[in-house]
């Protein structure tokens, strides 16, 4: 874990060096945007999605208060110039996911060159996929113009292979949670996944994750496992969680349970593989559009993924997290409860909160009462 801190510091230098060497940096806000396009253009892709409470007050000078904290945090980091990764970015790629984000991007474009992908509202292969496929062409042109590099099929295939390996390494790390007792706490897995996301050198990130998996399989971290291993096994579903917005994970684990699985876009929703046999542009369009986020209507993929994960991670309970004012996850919570509680007969707990710490004790009593029920 100390190693992670060093790597994070080294990483900032790596990005500066990459920029000095003429490589572009491309900032991403959402899992729907294929980072392969940036990698294929020899650019550095960086995740920019805001996970900290600090810049929210500044964002509220422009954005309404009753907006999701993730959007406010993302925007706040941008306008206060307090996020090095935003500063490094030459162009921002967004998607028309939820209402809040797409309107926020309109304002964000005043601060930084921004391109917003027109994401369809469902995943229908006849109507939505062709639209999304044409967006991929526009997206490719934008990246080529920005970086001055022609994205050949060969380059794109190589980028897909590299990113498949990275996602494979992420999945292997997250799959450690299938072991009972879990060898790592949810907080530990979250921290590794979060910090690796910013790494300019993808190979470094992959080998680091492979190293952690190998160490765990060789019996390292066992003392930790004893500490966290006696608790109830919790699957966290819903909105994305990162460092700074992980208070729910912390409270769950402080209360003696362990978060063994993250069914969200900062977790297992990233555990997909792009089909390397297909035409690369078609394969990217198909796989990314199938991301099971609540912005899709219907969003059947999430229910399938949840069922699969509940079984494979042998979980005792499911906690569904919604950021305040995230309507799509908040409404979908009703159906998640139906699926998990009524169909699978596992109690669920739905929590709605923001990034502020002010409701910590209220969350604690809900979480502890829920754990008493399991």
């Amino acid at each position, binding site marked *: 874990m100390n190693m992670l801190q060093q790597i994070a510091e080294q990483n900032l230098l790596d990005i500066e060096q990459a920029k000095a060497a003429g490589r572009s940096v491309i900032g991403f806000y959402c899992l729907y945007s294929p980072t392969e396009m940036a990698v294929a253009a020899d650019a550095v892709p960086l995740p920019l999605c805001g996970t900290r409470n600090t810049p929210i007050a500044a964002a509220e000078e422009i954005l309404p208060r009753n907006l999701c904290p993730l959007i406010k945090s993302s925007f706040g980091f941008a306008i206060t110039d307090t996020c090095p990764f935003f500063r490094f970015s030459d162009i921002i790629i967004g998607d028309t996911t939820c209402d809040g984000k797409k309107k926020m991007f309109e304002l964000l474009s005043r601060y930084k060159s921004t391109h917003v992908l027109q994401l369809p509202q469902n995943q229908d292969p006849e109507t939505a996929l062709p639209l999304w496929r044409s967006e991929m062409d526009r997206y490719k042109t934008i990246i080529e113009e920005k970086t001055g590099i022609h994205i050949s099929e060969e380059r794109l295939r190589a980028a897909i292979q590299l990113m498949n390996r990275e996602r494979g390494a992420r999945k292997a790390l997250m799959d450690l949670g299938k072991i009972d007792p879990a060898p790592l706490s949810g907080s530990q897995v979250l921290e590794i996944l979060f910090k690796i996301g910013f790494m300019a050198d993808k190979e470094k990130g992959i080998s680091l994750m492979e190293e952690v998996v190998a160490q765990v399989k060789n019996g390292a971290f066992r003392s930790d496992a004893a500490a966290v291993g006696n608790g109830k096994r919790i699957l966290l579903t819903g909105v994305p969680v990162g460092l700074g917005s992980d208070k729910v994970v912390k409270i769950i684990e402080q209360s003696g349970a362990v978060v063994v699985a993250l069914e969200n876009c900062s977790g297992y929703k990233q555990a997909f593989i792009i089909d390397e046999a297909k035409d690369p542009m078609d394969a990217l369009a198909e796989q990314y559009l199938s991301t099971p986020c609540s912005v899709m209507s219907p969003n059947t993929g999430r229910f399938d993924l949840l069922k699969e994960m509940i079984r494979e991670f042998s979980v005792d309970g499911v906690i569904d997290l919604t950021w305040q004012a995230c309507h799509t996850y908040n409404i979908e919570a009703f159906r998640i409860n139906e699926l998990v509680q009524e169909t699978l007969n596992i109690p669920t707990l739905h929590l709605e909160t923001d990034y502020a710490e*002010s409701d910590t004790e209220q969350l604690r*009593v809900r979480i502890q*009462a829920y754990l*008493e029920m399991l």
Partner: protein
Amino acid sequence: MRKRFAGIDIGSRTIELVVVDDSGKIVISLQTDTGFDPMAAAKNLIHSVEYDRIMATGYGRNLFEISFDTLTVTEIKAHAIGARAFFPDVQAVLDIGGQDSKAISLFESGKVKKFEMNDRCAAGTGKFLEIMAKTLGFDIETFGREALLAENGLAISSMCTVFAESEVTSLIAKGKSRREIARGLHTSVIQRAAGMINRVSSVGDIVFTGGVAKNPCMRRFLAETLGRNVLVPEDPQLVGALGAALLAREIP
């Protein structure tokens, strides 16, 4: 001497201490104001009684656990156990305390099935009623009785304590009857509480606990709104502490 087990419920407004004997019968019950130093107030209470084991609940339970090295249980489970001690077959509990409210449904076995709690503000809690009573110049003890004396209630749309207070102030300025405003406030709190109960439980008797259950207007409106039987223990504020004491007794 027979063994004794204590439960302490450290709430935002009051602290209750209940001691039961090894048959589960209440032998002592005490109450004090929480004040600004809850641990000192709790310490005074526990030093005035003798027991073999104690369990803490309420919002102050974690601080108590650290200060006195004891076991803790959430208010949810404590109220479930305590309510069943008074009414053995009941499967729904509504607790409205000083700063939070909760609706709990139980399995036949008494285990917690589902629960709902209010948001982080004091909307619809004892604190809300207390501030509104003060704004209207009523004593909190008689607030419910005064409300019941009005024939009709005035509609109050705000549930936020701050907004509701200014709404009430403007109704007073319009010369409206204090009792009618009071009745309207009770109705709006009950509508919110009824929604919470309906989300966790749809049929059967409801045990109503917490300080707000002492209010006759709240009891009557709750029963009328839900069309269900509302049962109130003799001292509804003791239920959490009793539940904790009974749990302390169950530990081998």
